[in-house]
């Protein structure tokens, strides 16, 4: 017990929570946008892999960090466009297309990595985003290290959550997106195109997923390696459910989840943790995600038209 308290009062723990949460926040918001518009995007895992690769590769090839993020964003949007084209106007199974996109994006990233670096044994590194020093705030004892020594990309993740919430609930565009996922017929009756709204949502959402992946290679670590996304995409899908399809709650879910993850990493190092096989600790994120789904199952607030293709003229 004292070990847990020691961990919880250390500033580095809270800094880790924010760091671990960042990619989850980006990708969860991306998935949330898609699902609010009525499209389940199972391409998330692969799009994160591709984003992680594309952003890193762009910087490795000589671009700056922010242009690298932009490359990841655009690559994610391109895969999103393919997903959107197949699932929205063509109305193909969102399960099959999503898994297909995950396979395509993952294998494309691996193929391109092997082409670019055929002979490397240890993955090359880039200079990643560094923690921002905020005058005043970063100098506060404990708090400065715990909360205010993050990279710009982490701040961007939180900014993104606020922006998505604002757009979704305070603008006509957000209303249209939510309506496309709840009652597409009503959207068409307003003279708006359900297809355009849904495709736009999937493309933007996929871009955010890719930025989430890019956080891993450009902020959390400094190289790209295979299997680095390691199911984070699937966890984000669970986080959307856990967050009841609301950006604020999803953000809290990602933080809570990151808290458990940061805790388990540190518990492994304690004498108590040495007694338990490390695999048990590594299982915790996946088990928690399943528990979150079970916990939320009774309070389903799932968008009514999620996974229902809309064919104009059909009733």
């Amino acid at each position, binding site marked *: 017990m004292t070990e847990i308290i020691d961990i919880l009062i250390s500033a580095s723990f809270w800094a880790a929570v924010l760091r671990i949460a960042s990619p989850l926040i980006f990708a969860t918001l991306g998935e949330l946008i898609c699902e609010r518009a009525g499209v389940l995007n*199972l391409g998330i895992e692969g799009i994160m892999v591709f984003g992680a690769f594309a952003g890193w590769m762009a910087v490795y090839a000589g671009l700056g960090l922010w242009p690298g993020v932009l490359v990841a964003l655009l690559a994610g949007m391109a895969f999103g466009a*393919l997903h959107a084209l*197949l699932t929205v*106007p*063509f*109305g*193909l*199974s969102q*399960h*099959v*297309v999503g*898994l*297909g*996109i995950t*396979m*395509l994006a*993952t*294998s*494309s990233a*691996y*193929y391109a990595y*092997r*082409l670019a670096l*055929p002979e490397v044994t240890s993955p090359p590194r880039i200079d990643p985003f560094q923690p921002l020093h905020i005058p005043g705030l970063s100098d506060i004892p404990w708090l400065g290290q715990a909360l205010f020594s993050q990279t710009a990309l982490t701040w961007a993740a939180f900014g993104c959550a606020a922006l998505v919430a604002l757009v979704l609930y305070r603008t006509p565009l957000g209303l249209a997106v939510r309506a496309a996922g709840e009652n597409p017929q009503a959207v068409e009756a307003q003279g708006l195109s359900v*297809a355009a709204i849904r495709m736009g949502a999937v493309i933007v959402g996929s871009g955010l997923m890719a930025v989430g992946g890019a956080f891993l290679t450009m902020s959390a670590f400094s190289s790209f390696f295979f299997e680095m996304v*390691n*199911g984070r995409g*699937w*966890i984000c*899908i*669970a986080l959307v*459910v856990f967050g009841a399809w609301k950006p604020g709650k999803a953000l809290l879910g990602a933080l809570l989840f990151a808290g458990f993850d940061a805790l388990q990493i540190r518990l492994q190092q304690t004498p108590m943790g040495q007694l338990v*096989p490390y*695999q*048990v600790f*590594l*299982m915790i994120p*996946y*088990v928690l*995600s*399943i528990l979150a*789904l*079970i916990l939320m*199952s*009774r309070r*389903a607030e799932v968008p009514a038209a999620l996974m229902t293709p809309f*064919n*104009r*003229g059909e009733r």
Partner: protein
Amino acid sequence: MRLDPIAAPSPARTLGLPALALGATVLVAMGLALIAGADPLATLGLIARGAAGSKFALLETLNRATPLIFTGLAISVAFRARLWNIGAEAQLYAGALVTVVIGTQLGLPGPLALPLMALGAVLAGALVLLGPVLLKTRLGVDEVVTTLLLNFIMALFISYLLEGPLKDPMGMGWPKSPALPRDARLPRIVEGLRLHWGFGLALLSALAVWVMQTRTTLGYEIRATGLNAEAARFAGIPVGRVLVKTALISGGLAALAGFSEVAGLKGNLTADLSPGFGYTGIVVAMLALLHPLGVVVSALFVAGVFVGADSMSRAAGVPTYIADILLATALLFMVLAILLTKVRVVRG
């Protein structure tokens, strides 16, 4: 744009569009070879020769197809009921695990051990899928995410066992299980040829699934549930129970892939037993349009692409991941082509 159903599609449309999808995939392959600086036609030739150009290559393809037939069947049975089992990987490992435990720990004679290993594997795989399905039918928890997450949990569980209780004391420190005794392994179909009875069992399973789907009440109920669960419930079909039965069959089939790989090919359990057979099974099933006999054909095709790409990669230096890209593109092109055999795209 809008999609209008075609009342009676012409044979040219029904056959031509899927052929076009395969043709487009071949074009993608040539494009990828070009990007890698290889000769596109030579690359295609190397893949084909690597997959079926010699007796050795052909046997390798048949061996690689064996687990894919099992996982492809597992997925096709589940998807037909619209049960999204993406956890065939976990079920495969559960089957492999039980196979090794029964085969190495009980000390039974071979003729008794092999059937018990297979049966135990089927039960284990069925149980692994039962959890997510009960969560779906009882609590409405989406099975896509739960089955996906179980793959990661199972991989860690296997890793723990291979480094702990199941570790081979004679394994020079490698995380692998002890090997099955000689008589607890699946025999070769023809003495001297590297092809084991797991392949035979896979063909039999495909036949059994086909009979189940076309000749039994359960097969009819599964189809009805998949087409429209609400209507099926209204017609008096116990949808929940049908889904549970589907899950038991699907999980069991996926587990047989693990049984066959361990007892027929590898002889022991390692963490890299499956290079994603559970996920590739989805491509196999979709390319077969979920038809159990089609699964055999598409598993052979998919296995050929993998084996051929491996061999081509050694000769031409194009990364083996070309195989995974091609299968993903084939999947996406094919679902689109199949849709377009049934609907027409109309403007407006």
